[in-house]
């Protein structure tokens, strides 16, 4: 790399570098445009959340967060994430193992199907469960006869959340495990490890940062999902209201401080997610796979 001969070309390189970047005014305009755009569209909305939440002082902020309905919304959101994220982690690992470690017919099609929930409107993701489990739904009569409640209750909210967060872990792990190949696993197996040991002591350490990255994004979406959950929840206060739904209710009641107080918790979650995500990318970028995305 540090070839002295190449060094001798550097003057030429230098003289050209002016020609391969924009002139100073153009650079300033581009940077100014980008900064103003990012400030108006990203920074201001974030600031306004905290500003409005604290508009009437810390006292009413704390009061808003302490209300029983808010606390039960927080509990429900944590519960839903605690169920749906592990489910999608198990699926993600399992799908990545099958897709990345083996060659089989229809693999590309399966990979496309996994991404399907990303191209479906959240409202439609909720609607499909209403069509299935609702009173007029395909299974509605049967569920009623057996006294099983899915819609307008926690199981429905979990299902809708699982649907919208379905691809997150799998789509992080699949390219990563494909890139890493099968060499390590084949070595472990040839040395006498069984399948579970190979996964636990060889594959899992190799993909742990990528897995964490997927979990982080999956969790953020699970806690923040609005459309799909709104359709299946029934908006029963204190029972089936997640934090985003509670934000909507408070906002529509003109309780701005309350709505923004709950929103500030969700915005805080988003900020923590972004910080952790950036740290993971900085420290373990190579181990998270080249394919970054949402």
């Amino acid at each position, binding site marked *: 790399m540090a070839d002295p001969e190449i060094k001798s070309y550097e003057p030429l390189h230098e003289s050209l570098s002016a020609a391969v970047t924009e002139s100073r005014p153009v650079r300033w305009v581009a940077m100014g445009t*980008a900064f103003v755009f990012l400030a108006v*569209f990203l920074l201001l909305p974030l600031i*306004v959340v905290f500003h409005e939440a604290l508009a009437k002082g810390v006292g009413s902020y704390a009061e808003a967060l302490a209300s029983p309905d808010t606390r039960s919304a927080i509990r429900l959101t944590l519960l839903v994430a605690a169920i749906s994220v592990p489910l999608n982690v198990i699926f993600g690992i399992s799908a990545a193992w099958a897709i990345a470690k083996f*060659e089989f017919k229809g693999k590309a099609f399966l990979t496309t199907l996994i991404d399907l929930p990303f191209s479906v409107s959240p409202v439609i993701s909720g609607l499909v469960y209403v069509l299935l489990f609702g009173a007029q739904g395909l299974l509605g009569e049967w569920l009623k006869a057996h006294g099983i409640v899915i819609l307008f209750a926690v199981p429905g909210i979990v299902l809708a959340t699982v649907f919208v967060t379905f691809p997150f872990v799998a789509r992080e792990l699949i390219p990563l495990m494909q890139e890493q190949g099968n060499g390590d696993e084949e070595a472990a197996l040839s040395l006498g490890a069984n399948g579970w040991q190979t996964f636990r002591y060889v594959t899992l350490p190799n993909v742990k940062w990528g897995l964490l990255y997927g979990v982080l994004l999956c969790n953020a979406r699970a806690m923040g999902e*609005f459309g799909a959950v709104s359709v299946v929840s029934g908006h029963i206060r204190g029972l089936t209201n997640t934090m985003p739904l509670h934000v909507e209710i408070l906002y529509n009641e003109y309780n701005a401080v309350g709505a923004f107080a709950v929103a500030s918790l969700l915005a805080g979650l988003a900020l923590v997610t972004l910080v952790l995500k950036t740290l993971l990318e900085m420290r373990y970028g190579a181990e998270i796979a080249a394919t970054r995305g949402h």
Partner: protein
Amino acid sequence: MTTAPAQAGWRFRQPSVIPGFGLTLGFSLAYLTLIILIPLSGLVWRSAALGWTDFWAIVADRRTLNALKISFGTAFIAAAVNVVFGTIVAWVLVRYRFPGRRIADAMVDLPFALPTAVAGIALTTLYAPNGWIGQLLMPLGIKVAYTPLGIVVALVFIGLPFVVRTVQPIMEEIDREVEEAAASLGASRFQIITRVLFPGLAPAIITGFALAFARGVGEYGSVIFIAGNLPFKSEIAPLLIVIRLEEYNYEAATAIAAIMLALSFVMLLVVNLAQTWSRKRYG
């Protein structure tokens, strides 16, 4: 590398010493079928059961048509805005060095991380007539909140990372020597950008546009707060689905959902074709 015996007949999978294929594929397929495929096919089945005339009557209803027009129209405009500004943002992040660049870069993902309902109430508060931005636009006669323009603003917010994150990695891979070669051959900077760099970026820009557009069409949470939701004016298709559901009009909800899915699918197909075309043309 496993070398399969040449043409040993059709086999579902190539042999491998790694265990767990049946278990992991079986579980993945079962889970996929239960969570995604059965519910989605329920939607297809219900809309097929409607029959063509009923289906058409719902879709051709003036309110439905307007909602679809608003959803697809605002998503298109927002995606176009994001293509312009998203590409500039990506360029600034990739090519220029300035303090706080990493923070700006991380911020781009905010719309992925911030729950849509939070974005919705924040944007509405900003753009309301008495909001920080709204009161600046008021004297100019521009109303954003509670108008279709508000929908565009929300969708610009939602779609930005799709464009930046699609274009950015391709920009990072650009070989500077190509630009140097063009410059040494006498091309102006403008010519280099439009004739050398842009063609290489075009497929990524189209992909970013498509992703932002597809996301915008289906977006619900951030839009309903800022839109005002007036039928025929600022009512988006996903909201109309919710309204029909609340009226227990499952048929109409299903039909609108089915037509939205079909239109999005056609859209993605067109974009795929455009991408193939631009790869052939410039590749």
